C-alpha cells in the first residue's frame, strides 16, 4: 500500500490539478447534480487531497456517486476541477486493484449495481485508452 502522501501526489499528477488554488467558494458543490447522495461533498474533495486523507476519499460513497458530468470542472473559477480529482481517485482505486487498464470484459464484475451508466461511459472513455 502506498503512503497517503504518495497517493495524494498521484491524484495531483493524474488530474493535473493543484488543489491549493481552491478558494473555497463552493461553486462545485452548488453545481453538483449528485450532491445530496454524496457523503463527502465536491468542495470537500479538495481539502481531502490537501490534507492527504485519500483513504477516506477512496472509501467514500461520493467516489461512485459522481456522474462525471464535469459541471464543477466547467464552472470552477480557480481551475481546481474537483471532478478531475474524483476521477483520479477512482483511477487510484483501479490501479490498486492491480490493473492499470480496464478491459471491456472485466467491467461487469467490477461494477456496483448502483453505478450510474454515465460513469461507465466516462470510465471507459478514460481508462481504455
Amino acid at each position, binding site marked *: 500500500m502506498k503512503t497517503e502522501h504518495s497517493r495524494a501526489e498521484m491524484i495531483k499528477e493524474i488530474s493535473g490539478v493543484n488543489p491549493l*488554488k481552491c*478558494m*473555497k*467558494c*463552493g*461553486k*462545485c*458543490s*452548488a*453545481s*453538483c447534480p449528485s*450532491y*445530496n447522495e454524496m457523503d463527502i*461533498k465536491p*468542495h*470537500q474533495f479538495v481539502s481531502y487531497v490537501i490534507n492527504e486523507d485519500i483513504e477516506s476519499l477512496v472509501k467514500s460513497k461520493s467516489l461512485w456517486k459522481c456522474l462525471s458530468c464535469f*459541471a*464543477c470542472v466547467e*464552472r*470552477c*473559477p*480557480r*481551475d481546481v476541477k474537483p471532478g478531475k480529482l474524483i476521477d483520479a481517485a477512482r483511477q487510484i482505486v483501479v490501479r490498486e486493484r492491480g490493473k492499470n487498464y480496464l478491459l471491456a470484459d472485466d467491467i461487469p464484475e467490477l461494477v456496483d449495481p448502483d453505478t450510474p451508466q454515465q460513469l461507465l461511459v466516462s470510465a471507459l472513455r478514460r481508462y481504455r485508452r
Partner: protein
Amino acid sequence: MQRIGVFVCHCGTNIAATVDVKKVVEMALHEPGVVHAEDYAYMCSEAGQELIHKAIKEKHLTGLVVCSCSPRMHETTFRNAAEKAGLNPYMVEIANIREHCSWIHKDIEEATEKAVILMRAAVAKVNLDAPLKPGESRVTKRALVIGGGIAGIQTALDIAEAGYPVDIVEKTPSIGGRMSQLDKTFPTLDCSSCILTPKMGEVNAHPLINIYTYSEVESVSGFVGDFTVEIRKKARSVDMNKCTGCGVCQEKCPSKKTPSEFNRGLSTRSAIYTPFAQAVPNVPVIDRDACIKFKTGKCGICSKVCQAGAIDYDQIDEIVTEKYGAIVVATGFDMIKLDKYDEYAYSQSKDVITSLELERIMNAAGPTGGHLERLSDGKPPKEMVFIQCVGSRCADDRGKSYCSKVCCMYTAKHAMLIRDKYPDTNVTVFYIDVRTPGKNFDEFYRRAVEDYGVNYIKGQVGKVIPQPNGKLLVQGADLLDNKQILKEADMVVLAAAIEPNPDVRKIATMLTASIDTNNFLTEAHAKLRPVESPTAGIFLSGVCQGPKDIPETVSQAGAAAVKAIGLLAKDKLLTNPCTAHSDELLCNGCSQCANVCPYGAITYEDKEVNDHGVRETRRIAVVNDALCQGCGACTVTCPSGAMDLQGFSNRQILAEVDAICR
C-alpha cells in the same frame, strides 16, 4: 590622460581604526593618472572640502576619487565640492571604504588590502569618466486629464485650483462617468448625484478648466513637460454655443428606440439626446446611427423645433492640437461582459441583472422611476438573490484574476436599501468571502446582517434555472452547513467583475505607459510611486490603475493632481545626465532596446551617417534624455554594444572588474 586626486577619509576612527589610510594614500600614488593623494580626518567637513578645493586648483585635477563612506551618503557633497572648484561633478567617484570595508572587517591588513583595491577600481573608473551635463527641457504649464468621471473631475479641479489650466477629454457626451449612474453611495448612503452634480458644475464653471466632451485622444507625441496631443472632437451636430439646453428637440425627436447607454439598456432614448438630465454640458448630441435625418435624409424635426438654431447636420469631426506638460489618465472602468457565464442565465432571463443595472432600477430617475420591480412582468420581487464574485477572482479566462474590491460593499448597500424600502422582500447573498476593509465598512456590512436581516450564505451559486412559472431556481451551496440549497427567487443580481475601460490599451500605447495583463495601468513603483506611470509625466487616477471605490478614487485623484502640479510648477526640467545613448555608427536599428525600455525613451530615426567614408541612411536608435532614467536595460539588450550608459559605461564597469581582479 586624467589628472586624478585621491582623498582618503579617516571618518574619525570609523575608517582609520581598521584601514591603514596612509598605506592607501601611498598605493594611490602608484596608480595611473593619480597625481595627488592625501588623507584627512573628515573629508566631508568644511575643512576637508577645502582640501579638495585647493588640490583641484593647485594640481589642476581633472578627476577625483574620494575613499570614504557610501556614495549614498556623501556623493552629492563631494560632487558639489568639485563643482565649486570648477570641476564637472560627474568626474567624482567614491570608493566606499567604510560601509563596505572598515565597518565589516576587523583585520587591519585585510581591510587595508581591500580598501586599496576599492580605491583602484574607483581610479580606473575615473580614468574613463567624461564630464556630464544634465540636460534641460521646458515645461508647458497645462495639464490634460483623460476621462471625465469622478477621478478626472477631482484631478482637474485640484490642478486648476493650484492655478494651472487643465483640459478634460471625455469620450461620452457628458462628464460624470460611472458615479453619475449610481443611486446611493456606501457607507453613508448619500445620494450619488447629490454629491457629484455640484462637482460637475464646479468643473464646468472653472475658468481654468476646459472640457472636451464627445471627444477622444487621437495621438500623443513628445515627452514629460512637452507633450503634443491631438484631440478628436466628434461631430455633435449641435452648436455648443447656440444650444440653450431646453430639451425640446429630445422630446420631439421621433426616433426613440435606441437603448439608453446611461440606463444600461434598460430604457430607450431619442436619437438626439443628453445621456441624463444633469449632463454637463447640457447640450445634446445627435446619434447619427439612430437619426432618421442621417439615415434617410428626411425628418429634420429637431432643427425645426430648435429656437436657438443650434442644430447643425453638417458638422464634422474636428482635430484640436494642444500642448501639455503633464497628462493624467482617468479612464475608469466598465463591467465585464457576462456572455461566458451561461450558468447564471443572464442572457436568458430579464430578471437576472447586474448590480449596475440594479443601481439604475433603484434610482428615482431610472427606467422604473425608482421602483424595485421585475423587468419581465413589473411585479415587485419577494425573493432576491445576490451572487458575489461573478468573474472576479477567477483563474480561468472566463473572468478576472483580481478581486473587484467594490462589490462586497455595494451588495451590502443594495441589500440594506431593499430591506429598508421593501421589508417584505427577502434578500439572500451568496458570498465566497466578505471583504470590508475601510473606514466604517465592516460596521456597514454588519448592519445589513444584524439590523436588516439580510441572509448571507457562505457558498457559491452553481446554476440559475429560469422556471416556467417565471421564477428563477437558484442552486447554490451552503458550505457552513454543508448542504446544497435550491431556492426560488424572483430576481437575481450578479456582482459582475469590473475591468478597465477597454480603450485604455490604445491610450496606454499612445502614451507609452505600461499596462499589465489585466489592462490596468502600471504604476512607477507599487508602493512608493503609486500614482505615477513609469513613463515620466504620465499620472494615474482612479480605477484605470486598479479597482477602488469612490473615496479611494478621490484621494488618488488628489495625489495624481499634486504630482502633476509638482511637475507644472517647474519652469524647466533638469534631466539625469546618466542616460543611455546610442553610437550611431554601431546601431543596427533593430528595435530590441525599445522593447525593454520601461520609459518609452527610445525612438528610431532614419539618419544619414558617415561610417568611415561610407555614407548611407540608416535606422538609428535615439534616446530621449528627458525620458531616460538610466537603468541600462537597453545596453545589455544591444548586441553590437552601440547602446551605452553615461556614468556607468561598459568600459568603466570593465575597468572596475579588471582593477578588482588584478
